[in-house]
């Protein structure tokens, strides 16, 4: 049976963005996830972020691996190309897409199984390569689609539905990304759209690899008591440290005003990201401070969220490689082929 596309109904009263589109224009097919699944909230946040950023849907490429989380690209941006690849290998596909089409907005959706188990190497190397993309890890501590095994992000002692405690140390993707020198590292919670949407908007404005870990509970297999990835647990241990407001290019701002914990960061495209810190001395521009802070609070069982680290003028893959501005896939063949005369000349050096 074929999944039904969500009917595209036009509500004349819905607000429109700069492109004249409504939020509905950023939606996709109906979700087939479990009712209440955290991933659906991430989808909703993404739809809002795209809408508010005035991004033309078809200028986005949506990629994912395999898993419940990786199904979500079908649920937003029906007018964008989507690619549901193989398990854990979205980063490689994204690298290829970025290589070919540096002009597209790229969003990759993954799960904790997808990114931290089978795809761990690819995840780390996409960070290293600085592929320009927004990388979202919908983190629920389990393998949802294969029915509830612990993932590599499950905390020690977190209990399975049957009550067995997990024994292995978790991989915290935020710490990992910081360790590997990622230039934008954030964590959100699918239960807090107020925080998540601005994070996503900032991530899309980041001219590099923007990593967003989203705690996104699995209501079916990991939302029970004893789980450290449940809605309840996350709410109880939630520690937002940095809230973000996005100030578009054209708006007047006072750069780097530091009052009241506010920190303004000028981004690559000239726009400004205004960060409001709940802890005044938290420095989201220091990789080491961010790492130490997250570690410290992790040991206290807290889930630190917000834009935790940002390097506002990073270099990305194309800059590092010195590629032309024209997307490689769109260079006319005439500019690619050296031609017969050149070949003939070249032949002389093979005698």
């Amino acid at each position: 049976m074929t999944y039904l596309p969500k009917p595209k109904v036009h509500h004349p009263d819905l607000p429109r963005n700069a492109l004249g589109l409504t939020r509905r224009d950023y939606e996709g097919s109906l979700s087939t996830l479990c009712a209440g699944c955290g991933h659906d909230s991430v989808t909703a946040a993404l739809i809002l972020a795209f809408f508010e950023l005035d991004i033309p849907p078809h200028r986005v490429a949506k990629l994912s691996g395999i898993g419940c989380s990786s199904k979500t690209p079908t649920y937003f941006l029906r007018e964008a190309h989507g690619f549901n690849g193989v398990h854990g290998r979205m980063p490689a596909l994204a690298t290829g897409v970025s290589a070919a089409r540096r002009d597209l907005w790229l969003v990759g959706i993954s799960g904790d199984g997808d990114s931290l188990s089978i795809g761990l190497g690819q995840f780390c190397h996409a960070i290293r390569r600085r592929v320009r993309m927004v990388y979202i890890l919908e983190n629920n501590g389990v393998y949802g689609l294969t029915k509830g095994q612990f993932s590599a992000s499950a905390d020690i002692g977190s209990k399975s539905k049957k009550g067995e405690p997990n024994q292995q140390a978790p991989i915290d993707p935020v710490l990992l990304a910081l360790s590997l020198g990622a230039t934008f590292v954030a964590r959100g919670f699918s239960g807090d759209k107020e925080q998540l949407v601005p994070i996503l908007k900032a991530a899309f404005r980041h001219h590099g690899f923007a990593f967003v870990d989203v705690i996104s509970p699995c209501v079916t297999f990991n939302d029970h008591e004893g789980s450290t990835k449940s809605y309840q647990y996350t709410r109880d241990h939630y520690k937002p440290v940095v809230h973000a407001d996005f100030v578009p290019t054209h708006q007047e701002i006072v750069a780097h005003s530091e009052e009241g914990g506010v920190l303004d960061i000028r981004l690559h495209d000239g726009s400004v990201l205004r960060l409001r810190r709940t802890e005044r001395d938290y420095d989201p521009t220091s990789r080491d401070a961010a790492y130490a802070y997250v570690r410290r609070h992790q040991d206290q069982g807290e889930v630190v969220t917000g834009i935790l680290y940002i390097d506002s003028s990073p270099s990305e893959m194309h800059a590092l490689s010195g590629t032309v501005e024209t997307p490689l896939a769109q260079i006319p063949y005439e500019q690619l082929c050296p031609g017969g005369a050149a070949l003939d000349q070249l032949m002389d050096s093979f005698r």
Partner: protein
Amino acid sequence: MNDLGPLSPDEAAAAALARPCCGGVNEFALKIATVNGTGSASANGLLMQAIFRMGIPVSGKNVFPSNIQGLPTWYEIRASGRGHTARTPVFDLMVAMNPATYRQDIAEVRSGGYVLHDSTWPLQQSLQRPDVHFLGIPLARLCAEAFQGGRERLLMKNIMYVGALAALLDIDLEVVRTLLGEQYGAKKGLLESNVTALRMGHEYALGHFACPLPVRLQRLSATDGQVLMDGNTAAALGCLYAGATVAAWYPITPATSVMEAFRGFCSRFRRDEQGRNRFLIVQAEDELAAAGIVIGAGWAGARAFTPTSGPGISLMNEFIGLAYYAEIPAVFIDVQRAGPSTGMPTRTQQSDLLLCAYASHGDTRHILLLPADPEECFHFAVRAFDLAERFQTPVFVLSDLDIGMNDWMIPRLRWDDSFRPDRGKVPSAEQLERMEIFYRYLDVDGDGICARTLPGIHPRGAYFTRGSGHNKLGGYTEDAAEYTEVMQRLARKIRGAAEAVPGPIILRREGARASLVTMGGCDRAVREAIDRLAEEGLPLDYMRVRGFPFGDAVARFLAEHEINWVVEQNRDAQLRSLLLLETKVARERLRSITSYGGLPLSWQQVAEGILHDGEQSVP
């Protein structure tokens, strides 16, 4: 065995093998035994190039160990005025520079042949052979006298034996000197030492031996219009000319130099006025990622490829299946080496054929191109991109270490400037604008190939690509009929490629009722075998398959011959298997000749295969 000529095949093979073969003017082979990391490679290349410049067809086979420094390594040079440039295991002359392998090297010279060795130290008595001429030159001593420093002395020994060989084989010293000049042009000091060493070797030989030997050279003009090139360089050139812009790879012997060459060519031909790159090469973290990058780039509309070897193909299996099923163009250049597993990374083989034909789980089938030499590496690389985009599927170019890393004599590569890439059915924004609705997997014209849109072009082109079940409209499905319909179209699509891949090369001989069938780098040895057997009165036809799926011509040829010996370089008769499976030929008409020790094929192995036919059991 059948009676197919005046002599039965085995009699003819035996006769050919028994014919005394010893080299003469412009027909001989020599082997140079050294230690790797001592600089002999460039000296050996020099020698081969000099012969080539003298107009005599030549080939060089580098037999090197899978390590970096200090182990035995060999270089085999064959000069053949008649143009036989396959490997030959019969050596007229051995340049024995490595005491560690003296015994085996000296044993390999044909009776009546020559051993050139370093006589600074006396040769052990037990190594002597009465039927061989020993030519001793005190290379180490001469070098110690003439040069300073250990490294230079080591290097100059090599050039010195080149000088001696020039005298012994009558190589034009001027040619060698010119070559050295081209190589060291700017580096005056180096050039000088080289010329000195060359001269010293030359003079020593002239002064001590009866130069030239009976095996020697005489200028010809049989290399006009030819070049010396290795297949990896040629494949890289093909990718360049095909318009590939994205390349991803993970280093692996013997494929590494494809990317090195591609990078070199791109630096030269693919920079814009500001020096920015019209290409992007990603050194991936492994082969899985390399495959993914190529598939991602192909999906997004770039021509992309990855060079690799057997272990890489194994690792790419999952991604290959995705590209097949989701219909994404991707080019894989598999420079095959001896398997299984790590196998012998510096030895050649043709043993990834079956794997590539059916790579990945589930029902899959892939387009293969089988180049025989660097010339075809160039053209097939170009063709691979056209086929990948036209058929929206992975295409494999199956080269091997022998083709890829050794220099082969081939006609100068030519390029037709009217060539334009076949990008397949990719609707433009304008075309999409005019469509009412677009469905990704709908076969409107019955060839099994559907229109493919690229991201970011037009909202109407949007579709969802997935490796999971989908119907012809592009929707997700788990429905048996919908799933089956797409799978049947895929089978039809790939079948349709049979007439689009390069057809077989067929050579016929008067009166032939049997044939030799082969692929890839076996070409020259098999053709030499055909010549030799014809001389013994056994006419054989020849077919070299160059693409898969097989076209009608392949099946027809097999059906025309009572016996088709399928000659290939793997243990399990993989080409024969593929022919058995994918044509309707009767089993009895297919015999097998395999050789898989890792060295390039020789005509003798083919003849021996015919002689011992039936003894080899195909599993």
